[in-house]
């Protein structure tokens, strides 16, 4: 294990990229397949097919990966110290959920410099539901001294199907976590690496420009059409029983919907309808995927 001296260093200086590397190393040792981010825009690490689809069916599966996450409505033009339309999640999914998963999780915190015995770590009720994925789970948000740093969920349902066995999903909010570790009040001040590169050097311009795109410039007429096209493509692939490419179309349509939502052109009633349409695709895709596993 890490020596005392080293831990002390870790605590004050652990960079954003080292946080990722340490978590990858830790979960790799626990037998997880370390994957790379999915190469499409998604609203959460959960949407990666390595989680959604792989949590279905009977086969055991362990994975961990970083996933860039897009939430167009959360954009703040780079002016808010906590809110981003693009941020990173570190995602762990293990099926079936191991008995000692809580211990594994708490030890993973030690690997990035948070000793659980020095902090007030709380498991606060937070049942999770994703209407677009037709998914639901029970679990907690994990608080460290009052700050939410992780979502911890036992999937009960995915793509409209009951899960069996049950997977456990651990999602670390990397920016939050690093702000805690590095004791920063502004996300843009996070230290990315040991050369002194800051989060703002890498992402500030993107936040400004994407906020402008999401809130002002996205061409809504075209996006509405693109949504229809993607949905059509997904449906035709579903007919051909090709689950993974169909799921890609579904992810893309979900992102288009999120931009339209950020542009404020979707009414409450329409919103429910669009979500139902995406869920409908996910359910069919999930079913095909499970069928092709045997």
């Amino acid at each position: 294990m890490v020596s005392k001296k080293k831990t002390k260093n870790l605590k004050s200086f652990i960079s954003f990229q080292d946080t990722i590397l340490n978590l990858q190393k830790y979960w790799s040792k626990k037998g997880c397949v370390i994957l790379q981010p999915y190469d499409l825009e998604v609203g959460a690490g959960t949407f990666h097919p390595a989680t959604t689809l792989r949590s279905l069916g009977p086969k055991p599966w362990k994975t961990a990966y970083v996933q860039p996450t897009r939430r167009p409505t959360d954009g703040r033009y780079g002016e808010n110290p906590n809110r981003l339309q693009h941020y990173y999640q570190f995602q762990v999914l293990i099926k079936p959920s191991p008995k000692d998963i809580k211990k594994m999780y708490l030890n993973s915190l030690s690997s990035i410099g948070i000793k659980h015995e020095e902090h007030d770590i709380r498991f606060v009720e937070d049942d999770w539901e994703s209407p677009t994925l037709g998914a639901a789970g029970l679990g907690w948000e994990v608080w460290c001294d009052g700050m939410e740093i992780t979502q911890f969920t036992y999937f009960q349902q995915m793509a409209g199907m009951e899960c069996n066995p049950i997977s456990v999903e651990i999602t670390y909010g990397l920016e939050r976590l690093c702000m805690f570790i590095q004791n920063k009040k502004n996300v843009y001040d996070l230290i990315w690496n040991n050369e002194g590169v800051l989060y703002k050097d890498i992402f500030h311009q993107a936040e400004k420009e994407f906020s402008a795109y999401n809130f002002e410039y996205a061409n809504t007429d075209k996006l509405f059409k693109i949504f229809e096209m993607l949905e059509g493509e997904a449906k035709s692939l579903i007919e051909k029983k090709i689950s993974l490419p169909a799921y890609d179309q579904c992810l893309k349509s979900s992102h288009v919907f999120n931009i339209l939502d950020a542009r404020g052109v979707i009414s409450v009633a329409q919103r429910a309808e669009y979500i139902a349409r995406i869920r409908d695709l996910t359910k069919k895709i999930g079913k095909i995927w499970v069928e092709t596993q045997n």
Partner: protein
Amino acid sequence: MSEFFLELFSEEIPSRLQINARNDLIQIFKKFFDDNEIIIKGKINIYSIPNRLIVYINKVSKDVTKKAQEIRGPNINAPEKALEGFLKSNKISKEKVIKKSTDKGIFFFYNKPPQKVKTYDLLKDNIASLLLKISWKKSMKWGYYDLYWGRPLKSILCLFDKKIIDFKLNHLQSSNKTFIDKDLEDEVKSFNNFKSYIKFFKQRGVIIDQNKRKEFITKEINKATNQKKIYINFNEKLIEEITNIVEKPKILVCEFNKKFLEIPQEILIITMQYHQKYFPTFDDKKKITNNFIVVADCKDKKGLVKLGNQNVVEARLADAEFFWNRNKSQNLVKQVSKLKQINYFKGLGSYFDKIQRVRKLSGIISDELLISKEKIEIASSICKVDLMSDLVSEFPELQGVMGGYFAREQGFDEEISLAVSEHYLPSGIDSKVPKKPYSIALSLSDKIDSLVGFFGINLKPTSSKDPYALRRMTISLLRLIIENQKKIKLRDLINYSINLYKEQNYSFDSKLLNDELGDFILDRLKNYLKEKDIRSDIIECSINSHGIDDLLKIFNKSLNLNKNIKKDFGIDVIAIYKRSANILNSERESKLDIVGSADPGLFKNDYEKNLYKKIHTIRKYFSSIDRDENYDESLKTLSSAKNEVNEFFDNVIVNDQEEIIKKNRLELLKMLCKSFDNYFNFSKIEV
């Protein structure tokens, strides 16, 4: 007497599920012991902390004697299998059964002798099924297992007088051991009894008993706040929840940067209380301070926990401050037209459409409440603008309140700002009711518009479902009217509201809507009156005698009669009415057409004349009272007919030989009853 001790160790069970499980376990065990006639001295103690559910009974009888019993088996003609099953389930051989004839045929019987049963054995056989009887409000599965529990269950410790009660619950085997470190579950320890268990955890600073834990937290908070001369609003729900999410509570008095005190205090409170489960504190002038209380679940030896929580609050408040500064200067009036883009409800238009209707409706109400039409219309126009603000999308609970703050910041009149702020109130049965006329007018208009709209598109509540909370909205409407003692002609307002929808091309069936909504409102009023402990026969009479235009009257009259019905004059009123009405009822079969108009020329004695005179006095009283009727006085006036009525009945035979005299006397009684109807129709009052 024996000791029973059960501990269920799991991952962190949320507060409301702990409460749910504790309540269920008490009922389940109580019923089990009762059904089996097992005697318990003292209580069934159920304790919980996030990771542990505990059942502890310190005095339970060791065994129980079951009485002799005659058990009927299958018919002798039934297939052999039936008898085998019967023998097996009673654990007996064939020699033990006898044949006996009954009126339904000949059956096998087993005379079960009196039996001493060990409580231990009963528990051992039943405890798994008892535990499965907990009806979790929400439960889950994990791993490969089929067991449903609030959160993953890890171990079961179960002892009866130091002896393990050996059983299996799904994949888990009971033992005398438990995990003593809730985090890593590395350390396992065995226990002999509850005393050593509770002592062990006490030494580790864990308070197992939730009541003691709550007491401790309350005491510690008081100690900390007294020292600093600050106060908290003792929020029972929050304390309860916090008690259930900690095992070794430690009170930390934290603080945030004073500059955030510039933000409206509702935002500060909501941020701390609802999102972070902290207690905001106030000074002796009830102003919020920059201190807040955190109940941590560890000692915080290095002070990291305090620091961390302070950072979290400051980050959240920085967010809120950013929004506050941006939103407060966004011109409310200029934003009104943007409400066109926000859908109020499918089939009821946008929020812009809604405020046009509310504006006109509140204009009408302003006449009744004697307030400025211009001002209430301004309030109506801007009241929904805050829905577009960042702050309300962040803190939806603050809708209205934020609008009020923006209005004040932008120099609107205080009455207007307050009306905007309070127009969602009252939000429930315990919520504060607006008292100022502008606030009442706006809140009423908003609610009438919503109710008419939802009933108009036929989304009224069903017996089990009320997704748009129309019941609560109606109760709020009633409270606005009644608790402010306002006379509001609701029928007119509903019709006017229907017309306003019509102007916007939303056509509703006006008659149907009037009937359904009217009945719905009166039904809610019934419940409201019941909550005030008013007798249901009185409620019935009062509601039957008036309509929705007289909600206040219905309330005041029933309240007043309820208060006085046991007093002399109350008793008299009912007695007089009943005596007269009974005679009229008994004559109902006859063909006489009684309308309530006696001819004084046909009176034969003074008793009739006196009663007639009295009735006129009563009528005069009721025609002379103005809008502010004193209902006490009204009842006393009615009761004052006591002498005349008694003398009439003592000395006059209504059923006279002469048909015309009899009819005239009945007419006189009818007149009397009718004059009583001025209060309300007493016929359904039960004596």
